[in-house]
Structures are given as C-alpha cells and as structure tokens.
C-alpha cells in the first residue's frame, strides 16, 4: 500500500475541522488540507484509493462552502475508472462540483456515453442521474439518442431515470421533444409506480412548456382516472403506504396532470368530475399526507371547468383548512385562497372573519398570507368592515408591514370609497396610526382629495387635522397634511361650524392656530420638509387671519429662519419676509389654490397649481417622474422622530403608572406592586410632598425637574384633571394635572407660576423621562420667561407603546385562559424569579384560578430537566421582591441624578447644550474604577510623604501597640506617669491641631540639648535653625487639651520605668516629626528594550528624608533599589534570566481587570457587566484605546493627590504600595489588548463626586455594594423590601443633598490634561 505520508483519512480531516475551537483554527485546518490535496493531485498516484480519499475530502470542503474547482478534473478521472467504487464517487463529485457552465464538463460526455451502455444497471443509473441533474445543451444533443432508447428498456430502474433525464434534455433543447413523445405515452400505462411517477412528471413538464402538446395527451384522461381510482380504493399496500394512504406522491402527480389536461376543457372536466369528488370526499384529512392530496385536488377543482357543486366542495375544504389547528394547513389555505379569490370571490368572502383572525397569528408566514388575502377581498360592499379591521391591524403591526399597508389601505379606499367623508376619515386614520410610514404619493393624493371636495368637507378636514395635530405631532405625514390643510383652509377653520350631524367643534382662535404651528416648529419632531410645509402654511395664514398682532407674529417666526443652513428654508424665509412688504401682491399670490384637474398625472402635489405659491417641490411639474424621485429622496432623508431620552433601567410594569390595569393586581400574588403608587417620587417621603434641595439662584428654575416631574398617580379618569403640586419653592410653583383620553394617552399639563412680586424668572425648562415602553411627547413651554405673578404652561403626552412587550403579555393572558397549570421555566436566578412573578400576574389576569408551579433547574441536561419537571416548586417571592427593589432604586436614583448632571453640565467640557449625562448606579462605580486607575497611573514625581498628625490619645494607644509592643492600658499607665512627673502634657485628649498661640519652638528648644541619651538633640537643633515647619492641622479639637507633646526634657537615664521610657521617646519623636518637613521621594521607572522584549522596573528613591530621620517607625522604601540611569543609556546586562512572570506594571485598566473589579465589588451581574462597560463608553465617559498608544501606561505611580492627606501618613503609605509595586523586572508583553482611559468628562464627574462626598462618593462601589447586600437580605427574609428601598434612598438622598449644596464645586472641577501628555519619566 503506497499510502502517502501527507495523506490523512477523510475521518481524520473531518475530526480536525470539528475540533477547531475558533474560526481561525478551522480556516488553518482547511487551508492546510486543501494544500495537501492539491499536492497529492500533482503526484498523479496510480492508486485510485488515494484519489477517492482526496475527492471525498473535496466533497466535504464543498459542503463547508469552500472552493473546490481544483478538484474537478480528479472527479472526471475517477468516473472514467472501471472500478464501481471509483465511478460512484466520481459521479457524485461531478454532480456536486461541476455544473453545465463548466468547460471541463464536456470531457465527461464520452464516459457517459460508454456508461449509458454499460451492462451493470447501477453504472447506467449513475450516468443517467448525472445527466439528469447537470446536463448541458451540448450533452443533451450528444446523448439524447441513448436516453431515447433507454426509455423503452425492460429494466424499470433504468426506465424511470431515463424519463427524468429526458425531461432535462427537452428543457435544454426543446426541439428534441418529438423524439420522446411517443415513448412517453407508453410510460403512462406502466405498472411500476416509479416509472409512472417519472413519466407523469415528464409529461406535466412537456405540457407546461409547450401547451400545444396538451391535446395530444388528453386521450389518456380515462387511464389516469382509472389509475387514480385504483390508488384511492386500494387496500393496504405496504410498499407504497404512507399512514394508510397508498402512494400519495403518485396521487398528487396524477391530480397535477389532470389539472394540466382539464384546464379550459369542459370535456376533460366532465370526465374527471367524479374522481375529483371522490378524492375530495374520501381522503382522510387528519394527517398531513391526506391534506397534501386534498390540497392538490382542490387546486385542480378550482382550476378546471368543474361543476359548481364541486367548486363549492373545494372552497369548503379550504375553509376547513383555515380553521385547522396546524399552521401548515392554514398557510396552504390562505395561499390557495389568494389564487382563487378572483375566480370565486363570494366563496372566499364567506371565510372573511377567519382570514382576519389570521392577521393576529404569531407566525409571520401566516400573517403575511392573511394580509395579502385581506387586501384581495376588498370590494364595494365590504370596504367599511375590512378597512376597519385592517386599520386595527395597522395599529399593532410590525413596522416592516406598515409602508406596504398604508399604501394598500389608501389605494383600496380610493378605489372603493363609499363617499368622500369616509375616504377622508380613513386616510386620516392611516396618517394618525402610521404617519411615519406613508409614501409621498399617498399624501399628495389625500391633499388632492381634500382640494377637490366641497367647502363643508374642507372645513371638516381642517377641523379634524387641527385637532389631530393638537394631540400628536410625531407622525410626519399627519403633520404635513395638517400643515397644508390648515394653511390652505385656515379661514374655514376659523369660521367654524359643524359638518352634518357632527358635534360642534370647539371654537378655534387665530392665536391657537399660530400657536399650534409654531409649537411644531419648536418641537423635536420637526424636519426640513415639515419646516418648509409649515412656513408655507403660516404664510398663507397671513391672508386668512385678521388680527394684525398674529400676522406680525407669523412674520417674526418666518424671518427667524433666514439664517437656516438649509437653502430651501432660508430661501423661503427671505422670500416670504419680502412678500410682507408687498401687501397687494401677497394677497394675490396666497389665494386659494384651484382644485387640481387631472387625476392620471397627479403624482406630484402641485401639479396644475398655477399660482406662484411655493411648495417643497423644486422640480417643475412637466417632469413628473423626476419630481417624484426627488420627493422620495426627500422622504428618504427623513429620520424618524427621536424619542426623548428615557431611562433604560425601568421596567414597563413598575413604571406603568398611567395604566390603570397595572395597579389592581391580585393582592396576595403580587406584593411587589404595592409600592407602585409612589415610585416616581424619587426620595419623596410622601406621595405628593416632594423634597427639593435648595439652590442658590431662584432664577435658574431648571432644578425643579430633578424629582417631581412625573407625578405619582393618574387620578381616576372620571374625576377630571386635578392639579398635583410638584414643586413649591423659591417662589416657583409647579403643578401637574393629568387627563387620560379615550385612546389611552395621558395628557399632562404642567403649570408654572411665579409667586414673586418683583422678580421675573427666565430660562425655565422642564425635563421628563419615561421608560422605553412608553412614548413621551414634550411640547414646548409656552414661555421660558416668567415675569412676576405670571404663569406658563407646558404640555406633555405619555402614551403606552402598542408593541414593546405588550404582545407577549397578551399572549400569556390569552393562553392562560385555556390552561389549568402554568409551569414557569425562567432562569433560576433572582431576575428569573421576578420575571416569573410578572408572568404569573398576567396569567392570573387571564385565568384567576390558574395554578402556578415553578421549575428549579440549573442546566438543560435531559435528566436534570425531567427531574425539575417532576419536582415543581413555588416562586420565591423574596427573590422577586429583591429584584423589584433594585429596579425601583435604579430607576429613581438614575432618573434623579441623570437629570441633575445633565442640567448642570450641559454646555460644559465641550458638551452640547442638550447632552445627556447619564447616571446609573452600576455605571458610575464602573467609571470610578477606570478613573481611579487612571489617577494612579498618572505620574507624580516627586511625591510627598506626609509627616504624622499631632498626637491624640487614640493615636498614642494605636501606635503604642503597633510600634512599642504595649497594650493600650500599659501605654496609658506610662503616659500618666510621665504626665504626673511633668515630662509630657495631659495624655487624654482628642485634639490633633496645635493652638496658634502655643510656642512650639520653645518646646523644641528643650530637646535640642540631648546629645547622647536619645539622639535627637542635633535634629531638634536643626529644626530651630530653619527646618521647622508648622505641624499639620487635624480636624479634631476638644477645646480642653492640646495634642500630647513633651513639656520638659527627660534624660534617658532619668526614666527608670521601661514603659515610661518607650512612651516618652515616642511622644518626643512624634512631636519633632510633626514639626518637620514632609519627606520627598521619587519613583523611578526604567523601561528598556532587550531584543524584542520590553522590560519595565520601578523603584523608589527617597530624596529628602526629613521627618523620617527622627521618626524611625515610618518606613518608606520600595523593595527595589534601582541604579541610576540616563534616558537613552545603553547597558550590558551582567546576567540575563527569563522568568515566567504574571505581574506586569499596572497600566490603564483592561477590560478583564475591570470586570474582575466589578465582580469583586458586586457591580452588575455577569449578564449586565458588559452592558455597563459599553454604556460608559457610549456616554463618552471613557474611551477604549489600544494598549500601545497609551504612553502613560506603567510609567509610574503615586497616590492620588489630595486624597491621602486627611487620613494620616500611614494611609498614604499604604495606598502607595497597594497601587504600585510591580515585583521586579518582569517582561511586559506589548500585546494588542485594549485599555480604558477616561475622558475629561469622566474624570471630572468622578473627581466632583469624590470631592463633594468623599466617604460616600457615587463613583465608589460602596453604596451599590450595600444595595446588593441588602438585596440578599431581602432574599433571606431578613429585611422587608420597603425598608431597603427607604434606606438606600436615604443614603442617596444624602449624597444628592451634598452634591446640590456644593453645586459650584461640582461645576468647578476642572478636567485634567489629556491623558496622552504623560510621558515616561526617567530620573537622572
């Protein structure tokens, strides 16, 4: 066996591919093997088993979607081999790797010719199979004679394949069909099912491609009928039985051919009516197989000239299909009904309701079919009903359906509208429901519709659009239509009057109209097109209103855009502004437009408009086509109105305070819901009394938004709007009144009152947030200036989103109705429990008595899952409560602080004035970690090492035990002895600052004469000679005693008691240290390149020891003493060892490190950590940069400036070591890892919080960690949820109060210099 060494077997190859852990590994394996196969091909081995092995591997590559062209020739070589194994694989490879377009395929023709005449039927079969699948035109011509003769061989195995092969040949070369027709007819009488099946297939294909042949085959109708009859009445035939039905494949084929033959021929129709009726009535419809035959029969019945009774039968079968539970059957029914709706419109109409039901099916395939079908059903008589249903569907449809739906509904409305009023109402509804998905043509045809209507209808339209816009300005097409109609028919709108029987609309004042249009211009939903429409609308209004002050107002609004960056808007602004100077012309120009004339060429809005009025179409009317293109371009530019920023943390259910359905939970089942009522009053102790931190400037009233913008609870709808006080301070009163309208929209009116008698307020703005599941429309405030005793108002509208998760909830509710037990299989963690309770609450709404069980599982291994199913548990209420608590806290805290930060910092640090500076209780600690590391990495050279604070009793006791090895009792006893002896001051004191009057120099002077005993005489002398420095001042003063200090000199020999001696020494040395200068040191970082490796080492050099000279207990040194180097110096290492090390100098924080920190501090869960990290990047608090580009990395380290001071020297020392000490010179790889560097904003935020509330800073993980601990306590039943919420809120409120009190500090924090400035520092 000459088995090549480079050859691996197919199995080995497959295993290697499957064992690849990464895509890169897999590619490597594949490429290596491809190369090996090519190399092996070049060697031209005589052993066909090698070639087979190679080709088999090649086929595996093909399955993987790889390029395999280089192996095509090898397949051909293989199939030319006399061995069957070679042929079999060779033909398989040829079929898979080659197709008719490959040149090399012609090389097969000869082999095929030989094999078609082979004595072994399987060799012939392989050749036929190949020819039938991939024959090219040339091959068809070359080999058709062989196929023709094989068609009449005695061997059915060959005959059936030859039939399908003939099909391929005739498709390739239709001229060849005459050679086959006669032999084909014989196939119809074949007794072998396979041959008959293939023969039928061939004939169907022939007839479809050449309808002239149909007549030729009609004579065989009786034979076909007989065969079908035999199949349907046959007893059990195991070989062809499929669940009790004999050869459904053959039955379907016969039905297909009957359809082809019977189409349009009543004679054939008559012959087959009976058998069709028989199939349609006798076929078992309980299984898919039976239905596949029924389906085919129905298609045939509906397609031929069947008698009417049979047709009804067919339609009824489809009706039955429609109500089948199996989605497949329903899909097929819908699909078929679409095909027959034109033939049997009435029969299909009967199933209208079922079809409309399918619009709500969860399966998109079904919904699509149902939607398509619904549109085909529309006619004059049902237009009202169907459009109503379709509009209802439009309301809940996915966005992907909307563009087509709006078009279809409007086209149908135009086609079948019973009257104009209905037509207008319908389009109006479309605009309201999906105004952001309406095509330009629809909009223009709507406007044309109104323009061609009666004055009454124009009034009606103007009124309707006016009131629609007053409730919703977020739907673009609605806004556009409204703007046009209100501008054009403003006079009618003002004149008022009701249309027909309608209730009278409210009187509209001139100022109301201008208010509405300008408010849209000021809103966030305006885009250029809307802007242009409204400008034109306002301009028209100047001739339709009479109040000169309103005209003047319009003029101001219009000219305000004269500096718009958009050319069109600017041009309009300037032109319209000029038009005011020519009053006579203005009236003429702005007259009403004559109704458009032609309908056919009216794609463009302004077609046939003779006046000089400008609309947004720039292309002249004679080129409607390009004009339309232009319009579409404009529309494409549109961006859907941005929803206002909302807090992502919120959960629909918790925040859904506007929906009355949320509150009446089953009382026992959902204790979590009890606190829903006051959830939004962040930090507010009561339900309406909201505490607002004071702020200095009463004029800057924006702070009021911090807590109370959303009131507690909607009042009962019947009670009418009640005003809820939300804020009352600094002479500003804000009340909110809520009103829920019939469509579930909550309108909130915010009323601002300035109580001051003299001062006016300015720059008022209100901010509000809603959870993602709701939509907030914040209308502009009526005035941002509030003179004394004046009022301003602002409208908000909150709407629960139709989609979001509502459909899931509905589904649960619906399914629960018909269920006894609900088994909850959510993840077995806290969040899972919580979701479980949510599911339960919805299930109970659908079925109050449903039994709820919960599966406890940790993996989805089979036995485990079964065990979990057998041992159901109850939901863990406590865990759910803990999650509810956390969500509530996250939302309340996040909303308050985000608002606060955003308002305070907008416009600073280069932030845009509308920047969102979010706060999240996980987000910020995450940022804190990054900034903390950044601050450490920043290099401070030299750094100061702080001398100790003046000595207090507590400190004496602590240090006594640490340095002197004495317990506190002994220390105090000795100190008291010293005190009574008059050597030291009173040893019981809390003061750690020296009074300014105390003469420290004199006290030092008493020690300077010590020469031998203690050894500090010289040092004290030096202090007096200029080294003295005022001691640091601690924070404590008991106003009774000074810090402990020596009052007289005691020679060492004079103190006999060992304890007293030690304590005295400590007191004096401590005192002298207090009066000394801080020590100075430098950290040195050496970075050197050796070969390709980079090395870093850090060491500390103390430059000036200062107090350390006299205070031996403080040690400040690093484990590493470094020689002195100069930058760029080369040196030859004496010894080089390469140790595997894990430590590298800490650079900026890498993601793994950050995650480890978050994990250790309980920030986020494994599921959300990445989200938090992502969030702080999105907010641009930190940036992720390549490790190499951050030159400061590993450069040096020190304590954060300004933080260590207050805590004494020890703390500082500790943090130095904690942050630093990279042990030794370990190799640091310069890999492509990414690290996080905070932005100026990020640093500023963290510094601000650290500075303001150093012990409880929001950037530190403590508060969050505590919250996590409390959550655990809720889970264990140790604490009630409310308690935890209040406790946490109290803590955050404290910080909030501090932050807002020290607002200026918050603002003044300066962002540090860019992180890239820090360079590697080498010390000479």
């Amino acid at each position: 066996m000459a088995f090549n060494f480079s050859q691996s077997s197919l199995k080995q190859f497959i295993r290697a591919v499957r064992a690849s852990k990464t895509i890169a590994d897999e590619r490597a394996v594949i490429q290596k093997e491809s190369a090996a196969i090519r190399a092996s091909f070049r060697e031209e081995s005589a052993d066909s088993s090698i070639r087979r092995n190679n080709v088999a591997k090649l086929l595996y590559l093909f399955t993987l979607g790889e390029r395999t062209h280089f192996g095509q020739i090898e397949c051909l070589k293989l199939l030319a081999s006399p061995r069957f194994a070679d042929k079999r694989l060779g033909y398989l490879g040829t079929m898979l790797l080659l197709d008719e377009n490959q040149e090399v395929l012609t090389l097969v023709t000869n082999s095929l010719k030989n094999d078609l005449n082979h004595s072994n039927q399987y060799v012939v079969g392989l050749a036929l199979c190949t020819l039938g699948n991939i024959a090219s035109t040339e091959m068809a011509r070359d080999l058709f004679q062989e196929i023709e003769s094989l068609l009449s061989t005695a061997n059915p195995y060959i005959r059936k394949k030859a039939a399908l092969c003939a099909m391929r040949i005739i498709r390739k070369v239709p001229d060849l069909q005459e050679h086959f027709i006669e032999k084909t007819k014989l196939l119809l009488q074949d007794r072998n099912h396979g041959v008959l099946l293939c023969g039928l297939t061939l004939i169907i294909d022939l007839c479809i491609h050449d309808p002239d042949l149909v007549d030729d085959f009609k004579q065989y109708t009786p034979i076909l009928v007989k065969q079908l009859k035999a199949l349907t009445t046959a007893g059990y035939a195991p070989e062809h039985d499929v669940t009790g039905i004999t050869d459904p494949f053959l039955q379907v084929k016969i039905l297909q051919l009957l359809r082809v033959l019977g189409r349009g021929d009543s004679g054939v129709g008559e012959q087959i009516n009976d058998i069709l009726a028989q199939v349609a009535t006798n076929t078992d419809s309980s299984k898919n197989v039976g239905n596949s035959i029924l389906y085919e029969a129905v298609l045939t019945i509906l397609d031929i000239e069947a008698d009417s009774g049979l047709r009804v039968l067919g339609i009824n079968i489809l009706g039955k299909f429609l109500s089948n539970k199996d989605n497949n059957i329903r899909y097929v029914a819908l699909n078929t009904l679409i095909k027959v709706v034109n033939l049997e419109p009435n029969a299909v109409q009967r199933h209208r309701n079922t079809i409309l039901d399918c619009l709500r099916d969860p399966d998109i395939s079904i919904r699509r079919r149902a939607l398509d079908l619904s549109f085909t059903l529309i006619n004059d008589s049902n237009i009202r009903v169907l459009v109503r249903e379709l509009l209802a569907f439009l309301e809940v449809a996915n966005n992907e359906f909307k563009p087509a739906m709006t078009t279809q509904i409007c086209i149908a409305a135009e086609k079948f509208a019973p009257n104009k009023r209905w037509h207008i109402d319908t389009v109006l509804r479309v605009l309201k429901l999906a105004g952001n998905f309406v095509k330009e043509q629809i909009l223009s045809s709507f406007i044309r519709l109104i323009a061609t209507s009666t004055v009454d209808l124009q009034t009606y339209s103007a009124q309707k659009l006016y009131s629609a816009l007053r409730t919703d300005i977020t739907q673009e097409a609605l806004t556009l239509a409204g703007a046009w109609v209100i501008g054009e028919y403003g006079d009618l709108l003002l004149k008022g009057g009701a249309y027909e029987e309608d209730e009278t609309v409210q009187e509209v004042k001139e100022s109301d109209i201008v208010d509405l249009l300008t408010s849209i211009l000021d809103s966030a939903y305006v885009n250029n097109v809307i802007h242009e429409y409204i400008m034109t609308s306002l301009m028209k209004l100047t001739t339709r209103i009479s109040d000169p002050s309103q005209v003047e107002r319009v003029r101001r609004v219009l000219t305000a855009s004269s500096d718009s960056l958009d050319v069109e808007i600017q041009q309009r602004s300037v032109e319209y502004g000029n038009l005011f100077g020519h009053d006579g012309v203005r009236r003429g120009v702005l007259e009403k437009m004559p109704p458009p004339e032609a309908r056919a060429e009216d794609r463009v809005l302004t077609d046939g408009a003779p006046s000089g009025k400008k609309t947004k179409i720039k292309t002249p009317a004679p080129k409607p086509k390009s004009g339309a293109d232009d319009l579409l371009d404009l529309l494409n530019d549109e961006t859907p109105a941005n929803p206002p920023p909302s807090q992502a943390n919120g959960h629909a259910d918790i925040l859904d305070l506007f929906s009355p359905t949320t509150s009446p939970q089953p009382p026992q089942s959902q204790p979590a819901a009890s606190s829903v009522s006051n959830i939004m009053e962040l930090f507010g102790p009561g339900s309406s009394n909201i505490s607002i931190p004071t702020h200095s400037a009463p004029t800057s009233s924006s702070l009021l938004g911090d807590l109370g913008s959303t009131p507690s609870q909607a009042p009962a709808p019947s009670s009418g709007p009640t005003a809820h006080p939300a804020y009352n301070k600094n002479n500003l009163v804000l009340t909110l009144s809520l009103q829920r309208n019939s469509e579930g929209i909550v309108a909130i009116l915010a009323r601002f009152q300035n109580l001051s008698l003299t001062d006016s307020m300015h720059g008022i703005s209100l901010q509000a947030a809603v959870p993602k599941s709701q939509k907030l429309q914040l209308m502009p405030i009526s005035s941002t200036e509030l003179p004394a005793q004046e009022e301003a108002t602002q409208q908000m509208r909150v709407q629960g989103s139709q989609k979001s998760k509502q459909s899931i909830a509905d589904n649960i509710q619906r399914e629960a109705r018909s269920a006894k037990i609900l088994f909850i299989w959510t993840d077995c963690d806290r969040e899972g429990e919580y979701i479980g309770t949510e599911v339960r609450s919805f299930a109970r709404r659908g079925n109050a008595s449903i039994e709820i069980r919960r599966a406890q599982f940790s993996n989805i291994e089979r036995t485990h899952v079964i065990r979990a199913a057998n041992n159901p548990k109850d939901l863990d209420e406590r865990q759910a409560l803990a999650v509810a608590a956390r969500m509530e806290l996250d939302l309340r805290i996040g909303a308050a602080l985000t608002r606060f930060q955003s308002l305070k910092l907008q416009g600073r640090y280069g932030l845009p004035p509308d920047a969102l500076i979010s706060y999240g209780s996980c987000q910020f600690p995450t940022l804190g970690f990054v900034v903390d590391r950044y601050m450490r990495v920043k290099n401070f050279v030299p750094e100061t090492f702080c001398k100790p604070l003046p000595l207090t009793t507590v400190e004496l006791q602590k240090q006594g035990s640490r340095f002197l090895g004495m317990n506190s009792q002994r220390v105090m006893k000795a100190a008291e002895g010293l005190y009574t002896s008059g050597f030291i001051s009173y040893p019981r004191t809390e003061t750690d600052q020296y009074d300014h009057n105390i003469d420290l120099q004199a006290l030092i002077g008493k020690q300077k004469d010590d020469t031998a005993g203690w050894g500090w005489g010289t040092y004290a002398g030096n202090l007096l000679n200029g080294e003295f420095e005022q001691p640091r001042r601690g924070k404590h003063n008991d106003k009774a005693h000074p810090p402990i200090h020596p009052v007289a000199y005691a020679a060492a020999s004079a103190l006999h008691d060992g304890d007293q001696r030690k304590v005295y020494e400590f007191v004096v040395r401590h005192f002298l240290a207090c009066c000394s200068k801080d020590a100075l040191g430098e950290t040195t970082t050496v970075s050197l390149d050796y070969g390709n490796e980079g090395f870093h080492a850090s060491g500390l050099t103390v430059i000036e020891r200062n107090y350390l000279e006299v205070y031996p207990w403080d040690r400040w040194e690093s484990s590493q003493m470094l020689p002195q180097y100069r930058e760029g110096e080369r040196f030859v290492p004496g010894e080089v060892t390469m140790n595997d090390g894990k430590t590298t100098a800490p650079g900026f924080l890498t993601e793994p490190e950050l995650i480890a920190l978050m994990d250790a501090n309980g920030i986020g869960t494994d599921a959300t950590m990445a989200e938090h990290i992502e969030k702080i990047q999105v907010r641009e608090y930190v940036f992720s940069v390549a490790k190499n580009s951050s030159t400061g990395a590993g450069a040096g380290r020190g304590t954060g400036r300004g933080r260590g001071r207050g805590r004494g020297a020890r703390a500082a020392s500790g943090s130095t070591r904690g942050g630093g000490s990279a042990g030794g010179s370990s190799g640091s790889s310069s890999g492509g890892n990414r690290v996080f560097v905070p932005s100026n904003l990020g640093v500023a935020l963290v510094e601000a919080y650290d500075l303001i509330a150093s012990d409880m800073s929001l950037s530190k993980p403590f508060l969050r960690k505590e919250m996590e601990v409390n959550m655990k306590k809720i889970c264990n039943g140790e604490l009630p949820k409310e308690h935890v919420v209040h406790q946490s809120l109290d803590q955050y409120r404290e910080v909030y109060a501090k932050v807002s009190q020290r607002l200026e500090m918050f603002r003044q924090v300066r962002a540090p210099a860019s992180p890239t400035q820090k360079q590697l520092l080498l010390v000479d």
Partner: protein
Amino acid sequence: MAIRYIILLSRQGKVRLSKWFTTLSLKEKNKIIKEVSQLVLSRRTRMCNFLEYKGRVFQVIQLLIVPRALTQIPLRPADTRVVYRRYASLFFIAGTDQNDNELITLEIVHRYVEQMDKYYGNVCELDIIFNFQKAYFILDELLLAGELQESSKKNVLRCISQQDSLEDMEVEEDTITKLMGG
C-alpha cells in the same frame, strides 16, 4: 415544479449536506445558504414549516392593482418557497417553486429522513457528518432533477445496498489479487 435545493443544517447553522438542482455560482449558493439559514433558525417550534424567500411585496401590489387569473401570475425567478422541518438536531430545508405543493414536499423530505434512518440505523447527525457520501447516494436514488423518482419504500434502500456490496466485492477481489501476487 420541483425542488431546487436541499440543505441539511445543524441547529448551530452548520451545513451538513447541500444538493443543488439549479445551476448557481458558489457565491449565489453561499448567499442563499446564509439567508435561508437565518430565516429558518429564527423560527419557533409551533410555527408553520413554510417561508417565503424574496420578492413578495411586489407581487401583492401587482395582484391588487391588476387582478390576474391564477395561472397568469408571473413568477420572478428569485421567488422561492422554503419548506423546512426539524428532525432532532438537524433542519432539513428544501427550496421549491412558489406554486409547488408544500405539503407533499414535506412528505418527500420525510421520506428521505425515513430512508436514512433505515440505512444508518437510527440516524443521527454524526452519521451524516462522517458518512455524508452515503447521504448523497440515498438522495440521488430518491430525487432526480429535483423530482421524486421513486415512491417505493423498499426500492431505494435495495439499490443502495446492492451498490454498496458491489464496492465490497471489489475490495475483496483486491485482497485476493494481492494475496495471490504476494
């Protein structure tokens, strides 16, 4: 009027077998595999086994504006229907013409699975991965030019096993020749 392609796809989206009855470039094939895989893998269990792939919206609008009889609906070549069914860890996916009988296509797919089950003996995904040639051989005895060629349950497997034994005989002959020749 026929099956255009058969793809066997694992739940992880790996192709285990692909057979094409229409002429397409490698690029086109890979595109179809990618898009159809995404469609199929995103389906839930109780949804129907049929999907439309490409070119749907235009057809509907056409239907509405210019009503046509059922036989006259022009089909764009890209319009196919995807019929799929999941068996254990494998999706069996068949691309068919728009007006094929979807239900009988499901039965054809099922027949293929049945035959493999009998041939491999309780077929599982690994059988098909490591012995994919056999899976192709069975398919080639079942379908030709995208059409079912054999409706008998016995015939397909009988042909396969006879061909297998032809191969075995050749191996035996080799061994004997080698023994005789030394």
